[in-house]
């Protein structure tokens, strides 16, 4: 297998487009995942009987093969980016739901009690005490699901929204390894950069964890 390194600068514009394309599928998937997972996690955390049901259900969804999900979604959303994003969202959901529930569990009971006893209503306690304290554990889920989403986007190249995954199909069809290597390297870099950005965000948002006495 020989890699034609000269191919890279020649296809700079294509690579940039594909990378952005990749991100515009992966990032919304994680964001929608959060949007759905956090409220569900709050319900699962508050209503004990629902906890097992919700976590079980999200586990079942996780076991559906990714290609099958896209196929199942096709009749509903068609060959659109929506299909790609929806499919990935289902995957991020499992990790995000579990981590958010665990994050809420990790909030010290005393802090929750103090907030209520000071006269904060439940929603305010959730937003100003519980979620901030659960944030580090939630972020751990966000990091895992982001990396996962970035690697899974490629699968959506079957429906034409695979981002860097398109390079794999292209290289495979032409029996030309260079685009495949380019796709691997860029996916990897993208995952690393995304993870670093998330670590930075977490650091910025949790000043109370910085200087452990």
């Amino acid at each position, binding site marked *: 297998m020989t890699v034609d390194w000269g191919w890279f600068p020649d296809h700079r514009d294509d690579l940039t487009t594909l990378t952005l394309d990749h991100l515009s599928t992966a990032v919304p998937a994680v964001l929608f995942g959060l949007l759905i997972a956090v409220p569900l996690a709050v319900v699962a955390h508050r209503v004990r009987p629902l906890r097992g049901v919700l976590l079980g259900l999200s586990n079942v969804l996780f076991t559906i093969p990714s290609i099958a999900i896209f196929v199942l979604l096709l009749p509903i959303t068609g060959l659109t980016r929506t299909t790609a994003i929806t499919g990935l969202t289902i995957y991020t959901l499992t990790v995000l739901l579990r981590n958010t529930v665990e994050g809420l569990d990790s909030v010290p009971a005393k*802090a929750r009690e*103090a907030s209520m*006893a000071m*006269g904060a209503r439940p929603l305010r306690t959730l937003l100003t*005490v519980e979620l*901030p304290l659960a944030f580090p554990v939630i972020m751990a889920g966000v990091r895992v699901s982001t990396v996962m989403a970035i690697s899974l986007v490629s699968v959506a190249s079957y429906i034409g929204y695979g981002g860097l995954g398109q390079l794999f199909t292209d290289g495979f069809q032409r029996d030309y390894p260079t685009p495949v290597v380019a796709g691997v390297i860029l996916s990897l870099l993208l995952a690393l950069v995304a993870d670093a950005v998330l670590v930075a965000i977490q650091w910025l948002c949790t*000043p109370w964890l910085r200087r452990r*006495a």
Partner: protein
Amino acid sequence: MTICRQGKGKRMISFKHVSKHYPNGTTAVDDLSLELPEGDITVLVGTSGCGKTTTLRMVNRMVEPSSGTVSVGGRDVLKADAAELRRGIGYVIQQAGLFPHRTILDNIATVPLLLGWGRRKARARAAELLELVGLPEGSGKRYPHQLSGGQQQRVGVARALAADPPVLLMDEPFGAVDPVVRTQLQNELLRLQSELRKTVVFVTHDIDEAVRLGDRIAVFRTGGHLVQCAPPAELLAAPADDFVAGFLGAERGLKLLSLSTLDGLPQEPAPADGTSAAADTGRWRLVTSTRGEPLGWRDTEGPDGDEAPLLPVRPLRDTDSLLAALDESLASPAGLVARVDADGVLTGVTGRDRIHEHAGRRHTEAGRGSAAEAARTNATSKDAEDAKDAKEAQAADTPDPDASVNA
């Protein structure tokens, strides 16, 4: 049904036939009737599972009564909006329960922010409170984990006081700090209370803490029964039954002494060092500084004579307790307690015998006072016989003052 009637102020918090049963069949509080006067510290004590914390938590509706009425400031708590009610009631819990993700200043500002004071005003108020509870100004920007346990507890108190609520609930607030810090915090609380005159409900399982802090003490027994509610001296002198007596412990008499001060206890001139008056006063001399502060006792008959090392002295002021005096009289080699004025300057000494005599008399007085009180209370009720019993129990429980003098 027990009612604390000895309060000076009007009733701030009242429980009327309040019970709390849980679905699993346990009874946390059983038919509690109790009235807490404004501006006093009422301490709820008892073994664990006796319902004292549940009682406290019913005041701000963290727990709702199964039956009966809890009212604060004349208003049924169940008729109030829970969140608004709580904003008007300070709450301090064990290990402070601070928000780990908020700075000290923002922790203290919690209730003012909930009340919509705005960030600037709330922070300014928080800074005031930081000073009030004796924390350095710089600590406001720190996070709870960067403070010691005692400091965190002070922040907890400051947070509870931030919106200046008339009522303060304290649930074993000093339970998790070491004894030295605990004593400091107790003193601070008493100092704050002398300024602020809040209606304080304080839960503890530590009877010494209860005696120290309480204007009155309510003793609970397992199963949520209130057994007795009385000022500390009365409780110690006349426990209602064996349970209360057992809870107060064997050193009830000594605890009673901790409530009396040296004020009024006569003193004699000190056997001072280097003065002519000292020549005829036995073996031990009290050495003082040039300002007159006691430094220690010197054994004039020891082998080293005037070079002998000083033995420690703990000078006592008139505001110190008789218990401290009794203790020092045992520790002092001369059997004399050095008495000083507010500036720490020696005013005289008091001998062991005189302290014992005085202590014995105080003890009897407390017993007699509470028996009279019991008689008065019971005369109005149907149980006049109980009063007689109480008096007799008193007499049996109170050591003969003469005996302690001779001891």
